[in-house]
């Protein structure tokens, strides 16, 4: 506590008179008797002990591992993300390749057929002009 002025120190002109202070003090008197205080201490320490025992649960045994576990989980998550991305890219490539391989011969065939059709059409036109 500081040396600030306290009631009922002399010089505190605003202070209540002693009789009133005595009455208030009586109204707010703390429990008397050591039994009460030792009982209160026991209740407090019982709660503290309960707190401590709950603090020593399995989750507290594991608590020191929480940070490394979080870091490891984050690393695994990131790695899984990278692997997943690679797999997706790989699957896309395979799909693309298979699509290209299966479509290309048809395209070529179609192109050849078109060419022959075009050639056939050109030949027919030429025959028509020659014969007339």
């Amino acid at each position, binding site marked *: 506590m500081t040396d600030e002025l306290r*009631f009922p120190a002399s010089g505190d002109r605003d202070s*209540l008179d002693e009789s009133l202070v005595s009455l208030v*003090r009586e109204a707010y008197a703390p429990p008397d008797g050591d039994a009460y205080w030792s009982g209160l201490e026991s209740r407090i320490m019982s709660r503290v002990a309960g707190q401590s025992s709950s603090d020593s649960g399995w989750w507290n045994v594991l608590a020191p591992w929480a940070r490394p576990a979080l870091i490891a989980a984050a690393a695994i998550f990131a790695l899984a993300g990278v692997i997943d991305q690679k797999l997706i890219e790989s699957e896309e490539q395979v799909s693309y390749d298979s699509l290209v391989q299966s479509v290309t011969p048809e395209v070529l065939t179609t192109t050849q057929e078109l060419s022959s059709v075009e050639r056939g059409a050109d030949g027919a036109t030429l025959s028509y002009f020659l014969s007339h």
Partner: protein
Amino acid sequence: MRIPDEERALAEAARGGDQDAFAGLVRLHQRRAYLVARAIVTVHEDAEDAVQDGFVRAWQSIDRFDPSQSFGAWINRIVANAALDITRRRKVRSTEELSDALRSPFRDPALDAELNTRLREALSKLPDRARSVIVLHDIEGFTHVEIGEMLGIPGGTARSDLHHARQKLREMLKDLRG
């Protein structure tokens, strides 16, 4: 402020997890802590709850306590906060109930009945904070700054509250004073 060697040793041991040392701190400070709580919550049972809650909170955060500081000032602030929490939870309370609550079972039964009745009524009519300030300062001897820290208000506000609380109390009891 010089911290007594016994308190410092107990606080340091308690910080290391020694419950017996913490019990020693409880023994040293529970009466004062009770008075702080009682000034705020008024009701004996609530004051006791606030003291218990305060010490349990202190134990939970004992590693944050600086042993070079006063454990008493630290625990009083924690208990005051616990008492304020209880007050907030039980904000609605009639004047009659409060007046009954002030009828402490521990007071001197020889006190004049009318004086006590009037005093209880007058105290119950004071705003919560004004009543706390007047009891903490005029009865328990805390400074404005200490009261401000406990109640979460500036020291100047505590001083102002005290002045107005005294005026009101005097006004309400003026016909009883000779």
